[in-house]
């Protein structure tokens, strides 16, 4: 008996030689178990993320084997660290350059709310410039917390309707941020 764990099959109708389920669930399963991260690390949370990617915590277990430091083929933007107002347009550009479907995790107090830096020069939370799916609390969060955030996001991705990104609500959300 090996220790290898497979992702659980979605709910469906099983018989001899066939298995029927909805396409949405299959695609959700595939997406959720291969979220390719784009780490946008500016401060200490970035160091915690390095530990998360390392051998001990091993983010690769969750299908996030390839951190791409480019928007190409990345699904999951992890913003880790203080984002100064001067950095905000850069972050926005990186987000815009990512292809749909894309998800965002704000890791740590600074990315979620500006943290202790309640100052004129610091963006008070990245949700002022881009939409955020999961917030990870902590200052900095331990690698377990970052993993927990990724698992939360996997739950979101698994259950996301295929048509969500074409719906007017989603368009409206992006318009609120002035994207497209």
């Amino acid at each position, binding site marked *: 008996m090996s220790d290898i764990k497979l992702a659980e099959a979605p709910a469906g109708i099983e018989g001899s030689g066939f298995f029927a389920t909805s396409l949405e669930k299959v695609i959700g399963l595939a997406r959720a178990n291969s979220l390719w991260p784009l780490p946008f690390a500016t401060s200490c949370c970035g160091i915690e993320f390095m530990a998360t990617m390392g051998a001990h915590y091993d983010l690769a277990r969750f299908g996030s084997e390839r951190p791409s430091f480019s928007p190409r083929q990345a699904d999951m933007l992890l913003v880790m660290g203080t984002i100064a*107002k*001067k950095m905000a347009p850069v972050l926005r550009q990186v987000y815009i350059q990512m292809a749909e479907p894309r998800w965002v995790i704000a890791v740590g107090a600074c990315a979620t*709310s*500006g943290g202790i830096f*309640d*100052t*004129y*020069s610091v963006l*008070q939370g990245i949700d002022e410039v881009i939409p955020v799916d999961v917030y990870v609390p902590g200052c900095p969060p331990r690698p377990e917390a970052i993993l927990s955030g990724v698992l939360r996001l996997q739950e979101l991705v698994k259950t996301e309707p295929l048509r969500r990104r074409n719906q007017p609500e989603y368009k409206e959300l992006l318009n609120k941020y002035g994207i497209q």
Partner: protein
Amino acid sequence: MGKISNQVVLQKLSARFGTKILLSSEPQGLLTIEAGRNDILEILTFLKEDGELNFNFLTDITGIHYPERELPIGVIYHLHSFRNNVRIRIKVFLEDQNPSIPTATGLWHGANWMERETYDFFGVNFEGHPDLRRILNVDDMTVFPMRKEFPLEDPNRADKKDFYFGR
């Protein structure tokens, strides 16, 4: 200890400039003088080019804001003489409506970025500066954030309100 004492530096300055040196003191052993806007360039030039004093290194230019004073905006120069291992600090105070002062970029090229920073945070206009624009803050900022009238904290944040903490 430097090779020449603060007294010697002060004597040389007084002999040359007399009443143009408005104030002098030695907090923590650092010779500090105050001067007027019109004399600052002359004083800096003298300190830099005098053969004995030789304050050849510009450590820093920065600003300060005392809102209660008659001349609230200060520009502060720190000079260091490598040869004598002596430091001096020169303060110039200006009004807060469009404060302006001659640039020191003619003496030290290093003054360029220091003056840009002082302009960025205190709004001091350095006359004759080759490229006076913001250096650290975003370009479209309209305020000078290190001035005391500028609110430091973001007004939109509600998470630090006292009642959340039972205060």
